[in-house]
């Protein structure tokens, strides 16, 4: 029997890796993918805590997280493609409209 805390620690590691990927990557698509990694790390934490407490609520919240992630992916990719149509680039250093 594996302790649930192992899974929790793994979710923390994945979340930190997602943060690092978000800040190191310079194109919008990969940054968006690292947001998905962070969402998955949160899902793993939810399920490991659901196992630790013996209740199903944590697993159900994962359903909602997956649904929100799907909706977010649709809108986010639409926005990225719009940016690409207007600017012809998705590199973040080329998108500096708000720079003073």
């Amino acid at each position, binding site marked *: 029997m*594996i*302790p649930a*805390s192992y*899974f*929790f*620690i*793994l979710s*923390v*590691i*994945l*979340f*930190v*890796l*997602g*943060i*690092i*990927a*978000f*800040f*190191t990557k*310079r194109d919008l*698509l*990969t940054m*968006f*993918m690292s947001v*998905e*990694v962070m969402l*998955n790390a949160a*899902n*793993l934490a939810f*399920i*490991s*805590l*659901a*196992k*630790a*407490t*013996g*209740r*199903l*609520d944590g697993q*159900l919240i994962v*359903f*909602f997280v*997956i*649904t*929100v*992630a*799907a*909706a977010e*992916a*649709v*809108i986010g*990719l*639409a926005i990225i*493609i*719009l940016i690409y149509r207007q600017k012809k680039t*998705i*590199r973040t*250093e080329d998108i500096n409209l708000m720079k003073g």
Partner: protein
Amino acid sequence: MGLFLFILLALISASAVLAMIVTKNQAYNALFLVLAFASLGGLFGLLNAPFIAVVQIIIYAGAIMVLFIFAIMMINLREGLPPEKKRRILYISLVLGLVFLIEIILAASGRLSSLAGTEVTETGNPVDLGRLLFTKYLYPFEITSILIIAALVGALVLLKKKEKE
């Protein structure tokens, strides 16, 4: 056996995300992410959540990543930043990540040990999940449908070509 599977899947998922950080090509990044999500699905299966594991593989590793790959195909691939600028950003993000890691460890260190002893009373079979979904979580479930409609209409409106020009 279970511990061996856990270590294997954990290593695969963590190293897939690491490989995503290292490689520059966005299509490879998406495929590494598919690997990470699939192994996370295996981890969900180890945690007595077989239905969530299947949903994870079908929706995340299947549908969402296919969407990403479609978007990558619509945008032609290019190179990243010159290396010297990237190095600085790497250090900053490593520091940020470490700070967050320490924060989480400090926050969770007292609580985790007490969780390890409790035993599992419910399993995540679809019948129990569905019953919970349609009783206790009925309102969030219905609101989710509104969210999906909003996302669908929003994506259509955003990407619609202008009629005039």
